[in-house]
């Protein structure tokens, strides 16, 4: 069994870099190749989202298969909103057979936010159940019924955590639950509020969790003051400090994006100094072309 590059990098104690792309709303594989191509050499693995915000897109598993064919390493995101345990286990086996080595276990944004809000949701199991399931498939070679699998899918198991959502005092307990269920790595929601993030990391260290799981901090470069204000007020679980919004407002329209990148680089710099942090996860959705620049300017290029 070959370990993926992400697992290997983290296992060797090196600071990891991942990024994220979203599949097209259609059957056009070229979109995947183009987006992933922009990240080649800059990341250890690239997340492929699973019908994110419940908008119907090409499936994550198939888009990941295209990424594998390009010689890059995907992280297959899997939500429990749309598929029951039968379909999820089935896709995990299929994914591994297609050369996919990493997956992220998520519950998923509610379907009422998406492009087909009248759809029935599933939520047969939640993200913690899914982590537990993949771990059992990997380490015991059994599915949820105890059946012995004909080749166990040896996935590197990830999950998400949000240090900025409520209730704050419970967030680290929830992280502990995911670790107990068997998660190998965590990617957090994008960090702007460094004070809160450092507090969360401190609590994670105090519980010994940073010894048991690799934590990658999410970063998203701001494109404009409008984007900053929108995210701060309309997107649940994102906190942006007032002075950061004012900084974006203070920049002229033509230079706002550059200011956003600057803030992003400063954030990465500060994150690298946090003890127990294993890497960063760059979410520059629909701005993938900036990832290479960010990775290089942050001194994280070339990838080990």
């Amino acid at each position, binding site marked *: 069994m070959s370990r993926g590059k992400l697992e290997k990098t983290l296992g060797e104690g090196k600071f990891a870099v991942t990024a994220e792309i979203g599949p097209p709303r259609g059957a056009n594989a070229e979109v995947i190749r183009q987006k992933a191509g922009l990240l080649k050499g800059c990341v250890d693995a690239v997340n492929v989202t699973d019908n994110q915000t419940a908008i119907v897109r090409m499936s994550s598993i198939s888009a990941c298969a295209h990424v594998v064919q390009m010689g890059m390493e995907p992280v297959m995101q899997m939500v429990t*909103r749309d598929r029951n*345990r039968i379909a999820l286990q089935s896709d995990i086996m299929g994914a591994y057979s297609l050369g996919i080595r990493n997956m992220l276990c998520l*519950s*998923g*944004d*509610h379907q*009422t*936010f998406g492009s087909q809000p009248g759809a029935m*949701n599933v*939520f*047969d*199991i*939640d*993200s*913690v*159940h899914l982590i*537990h399931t993949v771990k059992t498939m990997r380490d015991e070679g059994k599915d*949820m019924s105890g059946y012995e699998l004909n080749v166990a899918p040896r996935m590197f198991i990830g999950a*998400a*955590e*949000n240090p900025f*959502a*409520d*209730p704050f*005092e*419970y967030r680290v*307990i*929830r992280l*502990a*639950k995911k670790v*107990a*269920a068997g998660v190998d790595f965590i990617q957090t*929601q994008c960090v702007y509020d460094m004070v809160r993030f450092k507090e969360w990391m401190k609590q994670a260290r105090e519980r010994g969790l940073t010894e048991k799981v690799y934590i990658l901090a999410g970063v998203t470069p701001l494109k404009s003051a409008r984007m900053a204000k929108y995210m701060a007020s309309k997107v*649940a*679980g994102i906190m942006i400090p007032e002075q950061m919004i004012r900084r974006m407002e203070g920049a002229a329209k033509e230079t706002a994006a550059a200011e956003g990148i600057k803030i992003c680089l400063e954030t990465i710099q500060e994150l690298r100094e946090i003890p127990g942090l294993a890497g960063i996860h760059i979410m520059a959705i629909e701005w993938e072309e900036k990832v290479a620049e960010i990775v290089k300017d942050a001194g994280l290029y070339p990838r080990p």
Partner: protein
Amino acid sequence: MIVGEQKPLEEIKAKVDGYSKILILGCGTCVKTCFAGGEDEVAMLALALRLSLKMEGKSIRVEEQTVERQCEDEFIKEAAANIADVKAVVSLACGAGVQMVASRFPQVSLLPGVNTTFIGILEKAGLFTEKCLGCGNCVVDLFGGICPISRCAKKLFHGPCGGSSKGKCEVNADTDCAWQLIVDHAAATGQLDKLAEYVPPKDWRSSQAGGPRKVHREDHEI
């Protein structure tokens, strides 16, 4: 109780279009309590239908009757005489009552006048909230008396999700995040560590997903 809402007048009007005489059959239990289909609502609907059609130059004869419950033969048969007299019945009972009347009186058109929504409680005057999905295996004790299946939009057993904000659900800012309530209760009663435990996936066979269900109490059969 079972909570429902009366269908809009326009929808009911469309359903009774073409019938010269109908019976509006109310129910005196759950739908009366949530002001959807009790005696008062039957009277109002009858009047609204007659007046509305009169304004359009049409007419309709509307009989009114309300029985204690439409989910039991003992009460439904009180309506037999009125039902025999019409070709269509608008039942204001919940979906269960509507179907029972339909099966006992197959010769009439059974038209539902209420949208049945959920099993819930009267939170305060005028406010009914959903509490139970009828999953068939109650484990609310694991969650401090708050059911995550019916009250969490994602049925999470290890919530909250990343969208919980200021104690409210990401789906609806008016809805309390069930997991915030569960965590608060656990914290207040010194049981936060209990919430750190893994709860295995649910066996959904006891729910409607396992197929339409029945409860057969042979010890009460006569």
